[in-house]
């Protein structure tokens, strides 16, 4: 997996609401504040989307999620320019082949 593309893509989503599903099945909805090269994610104003799965969770500010525990990131469809992503992915793959 090439992280560059995802890093860039997530950066372009800053300020948008996304849902992150962790590997422990917890789902967290929040406003994407920032992301780093390891895809660690910082949220502001999070809520737990499925309280039944994790009843002790609470609404917090300033949440930092370790990138390695993220299973999925759910995005609003209208924020995804899939054509752009496909183009960028192809180019990145081509670059990798050249190395």
């Amino acid at each position, binding site marked *: 997996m090439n992280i560059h593309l995802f890093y860039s893509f997530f*950066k372009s989503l800053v300020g948008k609401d996304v849902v992150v599903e962790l590997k422990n099945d917890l789902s967290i909805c929040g406003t994407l504040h*920032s992301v780093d090269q390891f895809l660690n994610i910082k949220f502001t104003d999070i809520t737990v989307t499925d309280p039944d799965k994790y009843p*002790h969770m609470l609404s*917090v500010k300033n*949440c930092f999620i370790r990138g390695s525990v993220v299973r999925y990131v759910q995005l609003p469809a209208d924020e995804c320019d899939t054509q752009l992503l496909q183009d960028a992915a192809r180019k990145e793959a081509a670059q990798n082949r050249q190395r």
Partner: protein
Amino acid sequence: MTQPSLLHGNPYLCGAPRTTELPDLQLNFANIHHKMVALGSSFKGASQTEIQTCGASLPDHGAGCGEKASVIIQALDVPTEGVRHVQDETVAYVEDDSQGNGSLYITDNVVTWRNSSGQGFSLQYPSISLHAVSRDLNAFPHECLFLMVDGKLSDDADPRQKSSDDEDEVVGPFEGDTATTEVRFVPADKGALDAMFNSMSDCQALHPDEQDTDSEADDFEANYYEGMEGEDNLTPEGQRTLEHLENLLLNGQGQGDGQNRPNGNEENTNQMDEDQFADADEMQ
């Protein structure tokens, strides 16, 4: 004697049902002690007395024996290396159990909390799935730094661990793979919460998973990707610009001509529409 049943569903803890007389329980726990010693360093120093004590209290015990906790209370030294933040007068909660007052040390390598008696626990950053500042008093009665800790047992427990002479605070058995433990740090100084959060975030970035490391990142890209990137109010226009920039950068290795192509296409080999640039009044 009947086969001991799983206690609290935990395969490492076998015991007779609660109605069994005490001598049987003691016998069972003697077996458990041997098993636990075999498990390795985590139980070094746990004395037979401790386990019998825990077992003796078992018939009356509810969830208080750390049924879900994977945090080990032990004797710890004050960390001295890479200390980023120290917060005294901090109460630690493991799940909902208060560990009392103590000091929190956020260091480059580990998060350590210990009380004035020298008892405490350490957390490795890869096990901290999430941390956050919680100010919602409905969820928890104190403003705190909230940590979600991966409940998996780590084989490489704190190598500086010493044998524990205290009989209290043996937190208990280990939970299965998918369990998580909630840890909360409540400082007396609530204004320090943001600094604690930021220090922990900085240190988390020092511990990426090995498999996630992109070995292809070289000088140009390493400089580009360093640090947390985020704008609080990235406008749609800014977003588009970022996307195009990224596209350029992705293409940029050896091909950069500095020209920002709006549609992101490096080369448009399709046939140009001859009329594209024609004047409107010529288009009849």
